[in-house]
């Protein structure tokens, strides 16, 4: 699966698009962590909660559940949601 990385996390990946494998959002984030150590904790807290200003989208649909299944050939967009100054 192709994954769109927001600018705030490209210091980990070095590029905007990366490939990651996983049948769920959680598994895909684990694969990102394997490839780019440290990236998961910046998005998911130690209790497994999605951080306040991080959003995940598949085909324009927001995903709020880490256990949500992901299509093998889709594109996962990680977005840094708007937040104040």
């Amino acid at each position: 699966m192709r994954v769109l990385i927001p600018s705030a996390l490209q210091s980990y990946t070095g590029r905007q698009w990366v490939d990651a494998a996983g049948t769920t959002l959680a598994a895909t984030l684990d694969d990102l962590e394997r490839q780019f150590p440290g990236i998961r904790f910046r998005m998911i807290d130690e209790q497994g909660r999605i951080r306040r200003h991080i959003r995940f989208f598949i085909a324009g649909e927001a995903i709020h559940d880490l256990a949500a299944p992901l299509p093998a050939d889709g594109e996962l967009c990680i977005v840094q949601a708007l937040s104040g100054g």
Partner: protein
Amino acid sequence: MNTPQVPADHPPTLLVATRKGAWMFHADADRRYWRVDGPHFLGHIINHLVLDPRDGRTLLAAAKTGHLGPTIFRSTDLGQTWQEAEMPPAFGPAKNGLDARSVDHTFWLAPAHASEPDVWYAGTSPQGLFRSADGGRNWAPFSCINDDPQYRQWFGTVQDGTPDGPKLHSIIVDPHDPKHLYFAMSGGGVHESHDGGDSFTPLVEGMEVVAGFDATNVAFHDPHCVRLCPGNPDRLYQQNHCGIYRLDRPGRRWQRIGRNMPAEVGDIGFPMVVHPRDDRTLWVFPMDGSDVWPRVSPGGRPAAYISRDGGESWQRQDAGLPQQQAWWTVKRQAMAADANREVGLYLGTSSGELWHSRVEGSHWQCLARHLPEIYAVEAVYPC
């Protein structure tokens, strides 16, 4: 933090942590000219930037951004390159029937005793205590307090804390005993350990609380900043939500020494600065804590106050500072002293100005303007 033993008049470096990044200011031999290095981590919220006094080279930075979770960055070449911690401070799973918590940000970084060269402590928001045994690369919850039901009660809720979250701060290691530790919490009181952190007990006797509340309830105590005197580790000073205090060990009762501050100024504030050698000399930077807590300099006239007699008397130090219409203040980590023969003082303002005094606050000069809101200033001596 520990004050390094340095030759007198060695030029210091200022580590300035701000809401939008970090800067370093390197002094010349006379501390008249300063070379700026930065920004580092532009756009990141840096709550604390600290040099390890044990090697004079290692920097740790407590960072997060508006979108991303908290982390720690580490440099061993004075900020030329940075590496992220492999395991930043993070709470464990739910325990003892208590809610699971998540670190919002690391607020305070403190090197451990000189005999423990790779050990560091960190205090977080919400209140948590963490330890690294490998120079800041990996962090783990430390001591029993994070998941102790009694401490959880004393932590209070996020609503009980400061506007950007309740904090564990003022982590102090007794230079005479690596197992003798202190920390403080806004809110939640001052606490002490004699067994290297296996257990802590409150140290709040004599401290006052807001009128109408019960001073025997540790949860109601709000120490803003506690410092140990490098020249006498048995003496502590504290700036509290309710006054300025001194504690002489082995005593356990804090003495309110702010009563002699001018009534129109009061003894409310956030920073506490102690002299590197003289345990009778300290500085505070009062803040307007009236009615709605404006958190600005009283009357729009910023000033430091010095006591040279352990808090018996106070003198105003505002020469060089704006004399009117200056509505900034100084946060708890944003005022520091160096260790030179003539002690230099430094303060960073909520309006992004960095001020310094070459001789103990007798005259102030603006060192930098137009920085982001300054969260912390440390005066250090890189090797």
